[in-house]
């Protein structure tokens, strides 16, 4: 029966090629616009560490009090005092304080300023690497002992390794950052989660270049107060010593908690810590802490750029208009054939059969629109770099699941659009129609 309906549908569509093309084009454009924008949105809103994100948490402690809260929320970074307290007590299975470092590093041997390399690095604790499953190519992370002894060690990326040493196993070599020499202990395989959820929450084309021990960096005063926010709304400017004892926030922090009990325990611990600070007279307010896992934290911080969401919204609007358009045209097209319907019904076709016949026809239009949509989506994803910033456009990928989804969306949307027109067609009264002819 289906084959027969298909034959009828093809015949009907070929009878009005203009209208058929118009409907298919509209579906194709609507679906392609939505799917292109969805591919960007999907890339941008994807979980940066899907296998572990529900075990990674960002603690927030309120060091400023009610007057400085936005919607009751504590700030998203920690003060040095709080970060160190959390590190010392070590209540999670793994944890690390994290601060970004932007450095221009000279290539060894050259000494020429022309060969300075701009790098993005982080000062972290040894547990940072196993906590975030950072993959190593050569060597390994430094140890907790190295942290405590404040040893000048560095873990570098493959890319930075290429730039500095031309690749290969560079463990044991030395890199000079500012005035200190750091010994390479590990080289990381390509690792560039998007966004950089552990610090910054930005989308970046290039992976992080190096990691150095947090305690060494702080003890040797080689970080600047850049990036700190203070409750008087200003940069401290004055330098590191003042910053370390200040209530300014500048440290990102991440903990790993393996099960709900551990999460609960950590929450209680944070509240106990804040109460303790309250008793000590440092905080003059009740504990106002947060402990969000990575997806919740990214959601809270609105990492998806509003332009990306707006574009998706507009594209979906286009799809909606295209669908309304299809409903109207299908209705016209189906009812034009009232005579034909009447004859089929008079010859014994049931209402359900008529319904099935018209849905088949709509499905065929949907499939055609889907094919066009696939083509337009492919073009759209290739051209998305023209209208979106490079670091976002790079996240839009054409993969089998996207293509399948495009096709499905086209067919499903067209069938949905056909529900009412097919219903109307199946309700055509045979006697009346036949008499009128």
């Amino acid at each position, binding site marked *: 029966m289906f084959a027969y309906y298909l034959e009828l549908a093809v015949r009907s569509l070929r009878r009005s090629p203009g*209208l058929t093309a*118009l409907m298919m*084009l*509209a579906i194709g*454009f*609507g679906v392609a*616009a939505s799917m292109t924008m969805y591919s960007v949105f999907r890339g941008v809103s994807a979980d940066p560490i899907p296998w572990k994100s529900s075990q990674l948490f960002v603690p927030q402690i309120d060091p400023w009090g009610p007057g400085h809260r936005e919607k009751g929320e504590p700030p998203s970074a920690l003060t040095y005092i709080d970060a160190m307290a959390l590190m010392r007590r070590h209540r999670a299975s793994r944890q690390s304080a994290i601060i970004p470092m932007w450095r*221009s590093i000279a290539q060894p041997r050259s000494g*020429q*300023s*022309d060969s*300075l390399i*701009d790098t993005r690095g982080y000062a972290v604790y040894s547990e940072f690497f196993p906590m975030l499953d950072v993959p190593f190519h050569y060597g390994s992370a430094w140890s907790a002992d190295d942290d405590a002894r404040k040893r000048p060690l560095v873990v570098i990326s493959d890319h930075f390794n290429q730039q500095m040493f031309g690749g290969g196993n560079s463990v044991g070599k030395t890199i000079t950052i*500012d*005035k200190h020499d750091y010994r390479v202990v590990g080289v990381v395989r390509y690792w560039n989660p998007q966004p950089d959820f552990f610090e910054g929450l930005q989308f970046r084309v290039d992976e992080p270049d190096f990691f150095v021990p947090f305690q060494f960096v702080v003890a040797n005063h080689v970080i600047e107060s850049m990036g700190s926010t203070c409750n008087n709304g200003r940069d401290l400017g004055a330098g590191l010593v003042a910053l370390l004892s200040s209530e300014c926030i500048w440290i990102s922090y991440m903990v790993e908690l393996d099960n709900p009990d551990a999460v609960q325990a950590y929450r209680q611990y944070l509240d106990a810590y804040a109460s303790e600070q309250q008793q000590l007279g440092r905080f003059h307010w009740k504990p106002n802490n947060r402990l969000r896992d990575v997806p919740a934290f990214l959601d809270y911080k609105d990492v998806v750029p*509003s*332009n990306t*969401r*707006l*574009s998706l919204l*507009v*594209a979906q*609007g*286009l799809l*909606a*208009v*295209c669908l*309304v*358009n299809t*409903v*109207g*045209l299908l*209705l*016209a*097209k189906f009812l*034009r054939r009232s005579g034909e319907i009447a004859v089929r019904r008079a010859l014994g076709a049931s209402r359900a059969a008529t319904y099935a016949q018209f849905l088949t026809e709509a499905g065929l239009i949907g499939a055609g629109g889907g094919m066009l949509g696939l083509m337009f989506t492919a073009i759209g994803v290739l051209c998305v770099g*023209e*209208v*979106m*910033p490079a670091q976002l456009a790079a996240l839009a990928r054409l993969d089998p699941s996207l293509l399948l989804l495009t096709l499905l969306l086209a067919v499903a949307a067209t069938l949905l659009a056909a529900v*009412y027109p097919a219903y*109307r067609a199946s309700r055509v009264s045979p006697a009346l129609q036949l008499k009128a002819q």
Partner: protein
Amino acid sequence: MNVYPILIALRRHKVSVILIVLQIALTLAIVANAFFIIGHTIEHMTRPSGLQEDGLIVILQKWPGLSGVDGDALTEKIDALQRTDLETIRNLSDVQDVAASSQENAAGEISLDADRKGKFARAGYFYGDEHLRPTLGLHLIAGRDFFANEIRHGEALPGSSVVIVSKTLADQLFPHGNALGQTVYQDGKAAAIVGIVERLQTSMGEDTNWEFNSVMEPLREDVLWTAYAARARPGRTTEAIGEIHKALFAVKPMRHMPEPWAGIHSFSELRARSFREERGIALLMGVICLILLSVTAAGIVGLTSFWVGQRHRQIGVRRALGARKIDILLYFQIENLLIVGSGAVIGALCALGLNTWLMKHYEMLHLPLFYVATGVLAMLVLGQIAVLTPARRASNVPPVVATR
């Protein structure tokens, strides 16, 4: 022509009419907002900054950590390096003028009294030496440039005794036009207005009421990140950029210009780059609007064609009863006007509703009624054009059809 019979006839196609009205309303709601985004972007990109952009070159660089010196000694060392650079650039054949300039301008408040009790205005700050005004190509409409001996150097702190302000700021503080020579206060410190420039856009006050409130201070900022502005001789911008690069690295190779945000660039290049994302979004909105309008127009053509086919006999009867071709044509045009008109009215409300929602959830400005009105008009015209072909075909139905 009487509208009543048209309305009666439309009642027989309720669903189709509702669908087309809905489609037009949705289209208008989206297109009005999208065009507003496009219009705003274009207006933004073409808003004159007051600078003479052609031939303007911006240089931004970092001195790598100057070991062994800090505090005042560091300031003096950087100042010496800056002065050498400026002298070097000034002597190049393709360079007309060069000035010390600040990497980034800061914003602050400027008031008529020391305690900021009375009138005050927010403004963007430009630090630079006596060459900055001519190098940027700002039009001095009153007063004078800074004198060389007025230029301070060091960290960017208020305290200059003289300032040059933009006309917008001068008019805001002194509505009677007597700003020149007056004393103003910044952070409690007094400064005399010695010059007024016609127009100078700040980089921070975008879309605010202080977008063109600018203050120029005679200060060579001595920080590790230093910036210069240079003006190339007419038509020699590219050559000048190459020359400056060569000369600077020849005089001192230990300097750092991390691309893309530092280095030596023509101002127009930087400007184009900073508008890239905004331009992209506008382009995207444009493409989507184009598809949207085409789909809607095609939908009107399709639906009207169907109606014409359906009413073939009726049209024949009307023609046989004495209706002229023009009457039939008008019938369809007016019918379309009614449908599109009601769709447009609903769409206008939807556009405003959508705009309110967008303002709440996205960085969107208030949609001016101009865009809504233009949108309504555009939809009406689009509808009339789309219906023309099917209506023509209807008017060509011969009266003899009635007898068949």
